[in-house]
């Protein structure tokens, strides 16, 4: 496929496949393109390539702002624009209000391009759990883009959006970013408002940018982060977001947690790419050492699969057919509830609602949810100890590269393992950044950088330096 051209006013070529948000800002500032032209260029790209990728569930025809257009995962409430969370139960639902992140993007002048596909209620790692059909990986349409923010990652990688927002509960920004060869930030819990984000697991959900570059990530994070009076779990950033400029890693202590790098199931090609990135850190002047996170890696995933479904079982109770969304035609309230939820939810939400309701029920609470909370504290302590010795920890983001559609749909546990490396820092409330660090079998490999709470500036600095040195080409070979 060729490049995309701006619709209408042909002042210049807008190469949506390569254009970073920062470059788009330059175009706007130099008045070489208008917001409307940018918006149109991406809509054209969507018309061209989205029939194959299915990254978008909804597009917005009119540019509502003169900035760099953006795509939102369909979990972000957008006033008047259909927001489904990838679920049939919310088909046709149009929010009456904007999520805080949507309002902040609008206030920054970013026009909405559209809403991207996702695993239903952000539950999944491949976007195959979307009630509206899977998205496909721009690097290989026979493969998944990862998930649950697969639509946002595919949109950015496929040149259908210069940048996008996703949400990350157990790796849902980082893992698809890794599988699509783009940059994904999962911010420190509490730095980005969840107000208007359709909840999956409240104590873990965090919105994060999916971008082509680390600097774009920092720019978008700067727009969305900060305390929000509508979300009492948010805090003010302790320091302003800085755009990274340094090309070296001098003075940065890089830790390589053994268990996160040697976990079962990590593909050799992934390990090799990550090992090369670690070597590069030394070349860039970082001190590199090994450390251990044995309990975080062993218990992170099981602990996550108690806490997240428990919270989800409660968060998804509101979809009852009474006020909005799907309502089954049934007589009697009990039948209406049961049929609405049976018809409206797919298998994965049902599975997690049952898991969670069980883990919270009387007599099991202490053994499951209560215990998981204690383990979570232990994971937090273990990370804190490692981060006393090191500034940044490195590991693969995902144990594998993008896998073929259907490869894991029959085995939920295999699918869950796709997030085994991304989940532990999330359980500790820590920020982490995934950047592409090379190819394995022609598919992108993601490198995960983990830092202490509120260390986004450091992650951007390290990510940017590595990005410059790695010189990864984010344009999928088959589209270039």
């Amino acid at each position, binding site marked *: 496929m060729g490049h995309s051209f701006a619709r209408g006013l042909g002042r210049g070529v807008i190469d949506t496949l390569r254009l970073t948000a920062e470059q788009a800002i330059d175009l706007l500032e130099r008045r070489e393109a208008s917001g409307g032209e940018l918006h149109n260029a991406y809509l054209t790209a969507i018309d061209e390539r989205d029939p194959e990728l299915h990254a978008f569930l909804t597009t917005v025809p009119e540019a509502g702002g003169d900035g760099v257009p953006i795509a939102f995962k369909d979990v972000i409430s957008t006033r008047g624009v259909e927001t489904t969370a990838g679920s049939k139960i919310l088909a046709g639902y149009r929010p009456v209000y904007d999520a805080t992140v949507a309002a902040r993007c609008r206030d920054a002048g970013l026009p909405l391009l559209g809403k991207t596909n996702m695993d239903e209620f952000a539950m999944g790692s491949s976007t195959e759990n979307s009630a509206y059909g899977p998205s496909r990986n721009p690097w290989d349409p026979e493969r998944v883009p990862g998930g649950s923010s697969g639509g946002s990652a595919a949109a950015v990688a496929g040149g259908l959006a210069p940048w996008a927002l996703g949400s990350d509960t157990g790796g849902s920004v980082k893992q698809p970013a890794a599988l699509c060869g783009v940059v994904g930030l999962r911010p420190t819990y509490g730095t980005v408002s969840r107000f208007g984000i359709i909840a999956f697991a409240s104590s873990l959900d965090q919105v994060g940018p999916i971008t082509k570059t680390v600097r774009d990530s920092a720019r978008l994070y700067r727009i969305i982060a900060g305390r929000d009076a509508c979300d009492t779990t948010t805090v003010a950033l302790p320091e302003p977001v800085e755009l990274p400029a340094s090309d070296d890693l001098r003075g940065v202590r890089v830790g390589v947690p053994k268990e996160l790098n040697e976990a079962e199931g990590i593909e050799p090609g992934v390990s090799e790419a990550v090992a090369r990135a670690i070597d590069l850190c030394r070349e860039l002047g970082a001190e590199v050492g090994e450390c251990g996170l044995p309990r975080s890696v062993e218990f992170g995933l099981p602990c996550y699969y108690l806490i997240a479904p428990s919270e989800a*079982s409660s968060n998804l109770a509101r979809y009852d057919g009474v006020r909005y969304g799907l309502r089954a035609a049934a007589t009697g309230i009990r039948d209406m509830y049961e049929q609405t939820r049976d018809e409206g939810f797919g298998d994965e939400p049902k599975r997690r609602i049952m898991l969670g309701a069980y883990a919270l029920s009387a007599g099991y609470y202490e053994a499951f949810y209560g215990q998981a909370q204690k383990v979570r504290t232990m994971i937090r302590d273990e990370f804190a100890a490692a981060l006393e010795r090191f500034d940044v920890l490195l590991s693969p983001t995902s144990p594998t590269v993008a896998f073929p559609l259907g490869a894991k749909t029959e085995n939920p546990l295999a699918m869950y393992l796709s997030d085994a490396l991304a989940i532990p820092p999330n359980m500790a409330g820590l920020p982490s950044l995934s950047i592409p660090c090379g190819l394995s079998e022609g598919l992108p490999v993601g490198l995960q950088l983990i830092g202490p709470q509120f260390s986004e500036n450091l992650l951007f600095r390290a990510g940017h330096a590595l990005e410059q040195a790695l010189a990864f080409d984010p344009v999928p070979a088959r589209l270039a």
Partner: protein
Amino acid sequence: MTGWEAVIGCEIHVHLQTETKMFCRCATGFGDPENTRTCPVCLAHPGSLPVPNERAIEWTIRLGLALGCEIAPRAVFHRKNYFYPDNPKGYQISQYDEPLCISGSFAVPGPDGEKRVGIVRAHLEEDAAKNVHVGGSGGRIHGADRTLVDFNRAGTPLVEIVTAPDLHSADEAKRFLQLLRQTVRELGISSAEMQEGSMRFDVNVSVRPEGSDELRTRTELKNINSFNFAAQGIDREIQRQIAIYEAGGEVEQETLHFVPGREDAPPLRSKEEAQDYRYFPEPDLVPIEPSAELVERARADVGELPGARIERLEAELGYVLAEGLVTSGRDELYSRTAGDRRTVANVIMNELAAAAVDPAAVDPQELGKLVEARERIPRDAFTKALAASGDAGFSAQDYLGEALIADAAELDPVIERVLADNEDQAAAYRAGKEGLLGFLVGQVMRETQGKANPRIVNERLREKLKA
């Protein structure tokens, strides 16, 4: 109920009359058109999040202090999960094992001295919406054609107070509830109007052999909206349980629902359903950690409690009048009105109340003048004056002009005329039908247009009839 002792505990729900709801900025209010006080938060739209109402937290602390509670250094909101159309999120945000106020003790004066009622906890939660059943038989869920939901009430801050099972009779429970209501009102946190539903209570009742300290199976009386119905219901339930035990039976754990509007009828019984609410800490909210300044500010807002005032007034009035004045919010007027203490109390408690005058609108000085003149002016003049005593600019003097005729010289000619006109009745009285005196007094009062002093008329009539 000889040989048996009742064991009664109460759960009281009080709406806090904050300007806005517990977790959103919608106005609270009673009687607004349906679903006009709603927003994405209280309608549980996807993605909406709760933000706690700080005033509601402060008021709950104020109430907790008035109930003698400790204020927890850290309180946690929990989610109570259940499905019902009036519960939009599918969970209610409430407090569970870490409530805001704990371990209180509330003094309730009684005719036989003070009773201390243990307060297990007072916690903050949000109220549900209101289901309105339409069609079918008059608002009842059974037989209704459909159910509509009014979300105006959804998210109204609600304090739940749970007492220890320290009450032992229907009267005691009623006294406690009345005093609690007055306390809540005086704290300025709620009108505690049961008709509006801003105060509701459930009562748990069991009985045990006198002298025992066991706790037997209890039944729960729900949806009570008047103190009298509470007392009746408790009494009925105590008698029922005693009868069961005396017949060798066992009381079953069940809930008795009062039917709104038919509270004097026996309540509907239902088996207690063991429901698992899957409580867990609300992840959308951080724990409440009240600062020392906040607690001290709340403490400063607690004035002299009504219970203490009952004890203070009891010495001069006796328990019944003291309790009546205080729990009806009339004791301030009483204290500020000069005059014979009992007379003042009786006038305020009985006559002023019967005239439906707001005691807060009455000028105590003018009321004092009226009370002082009570014996000297015609009965209906006094009644009229009382009825007007709450009006702006009321002056007792306007009603004191018509003093009663107490002068025998003025009354005697009238009395003689009446006796002459009613010879038969006078003769019958003299023959022993003393009940006819009242008739004759009435005739004199009529002749004088009610201006005669009835005491003097009585005396003079007796004397003349003796003659």
